[in-house]
């Protein structure tokens, strides 16, 4: 799906846990997530901290979308 969205002309960021799979499939902008069953959350944390984690990942996603790239890039979450 990532590739077809990009092919249609829209920049896309893929947030996923197993980034090597995303690279193999061919996503260009990739942001690593927490875990397979809860990519944008961490049930072991209290709600406020969990939301802070989600915010950091989403910030990285916005940064990825705003960054010019020439090849597949895995962005860091601050």
């Amino acid at each position, binding site marked *: 799906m990532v590739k077809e969205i990009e092919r249609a002309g829209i920049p896309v960021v893929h947030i996923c846990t197993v980034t090597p*799979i995303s690279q193999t499939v*061919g996503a260009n902008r990739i942001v690593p*997530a927490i875990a397979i069953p809860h990519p944008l*959350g961490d049930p072991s944390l209290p709600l406020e901290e969990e939301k802070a984690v*989600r915010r950091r990942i*989403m910030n990285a*996603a916005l940064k990825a979308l705003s960054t010019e790239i020439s090849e597949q890039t895995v962005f860091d979450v601050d």
Partner: protein
Amino acid sequence: MSKKRVVHYINQFFAQIGGEEMAHVKPEYREGPLGPGLAFGPAFGDHAEIVGTVICGDSYFNENMEEAKAELLKMIKAAKPDLFIAGPAFNAGRYGVACGAISEAVKNELGIPVLTGMYEENPGADMFKSAVYIVSTRNSAVGMRDAVKKMSALALKMLKDEPIGASSEDHYIPQGIRVNLFEKDRGSKRAVDMLLKKLKDQPYVTEYPMPAFDRVDPQPAVKDIRSAKIALVTSGGIVPKGNPDHIESSSATKYGRYDLEGVNYLSKNRYATAHGGYDPSYANEDPDRVVPVDMMREFEKEEKIGSLYRYFFSTVGNGTAVKNAKAFAEEFSKELIEENVQAVILTST
């Protein structure tokens, strides 16, 4: 002659430890064959036997790949194998990646022959097909008998030091290696034969398949993310409760488009995941963990983004055919373009 020693890798499911709820289990070693390993015994006959089975949860392996590989290697080495087999993983993505990764590690670290088996669309196949022999299997465990037959035949060839045939003869996924050989007929005759078959609409096999490089160039960055309209898409299967579009829990043939007008976060009372193959409890407890509508709404208020697109798109990525996923995105991307959506955030489980 004593039997050759084989060590077998399987996941928590095939070890009958449990399904998704046990996908976090750490590596362990058990004596003798287990699960699908039992089927290899008769095929090996007097030549070889599975002396031990290493097991690891699919999530644990994929989320802690280096540690998992190191722990498993220690167990495998201690069992002194002559050959290592992993899987078959069929179309189970994390299991396929684990089978490929541990096989490659055993080959490199212990220097013994290794093989695994999986379906050609398994992401593990593309990642490891040039590193290890991957027997091509069907996409589900329905193909177990056939997979065991082909894998054990290749394993025996390896143990007897017999030359491995071409990928089409020994049923493994092509590794991209060319081998010189003499054909019975010269090239011109083979080409004309092929052309005649093609003209008559008869099946023929090309001698030079075109490589399938399916890469898309990255789109330019979003100029001003603060004013951009952004859509959320997921392969994590989040849908309104009751799954109104009946999206399948695996091998999905459809996707859903759901209205977010007036929705500030994905409440567990109104949304849930339709996805099979991963433990759904975390996603069901708070669906924003998969589709972060809550954070997008906060970003809107903080003017970090222009707006969240009114609809989100969702399907189940579990074993879903590449062809279907491609068709879904082709279709909804048209709407995104028409509605001037400038960027997409796609989340996967």
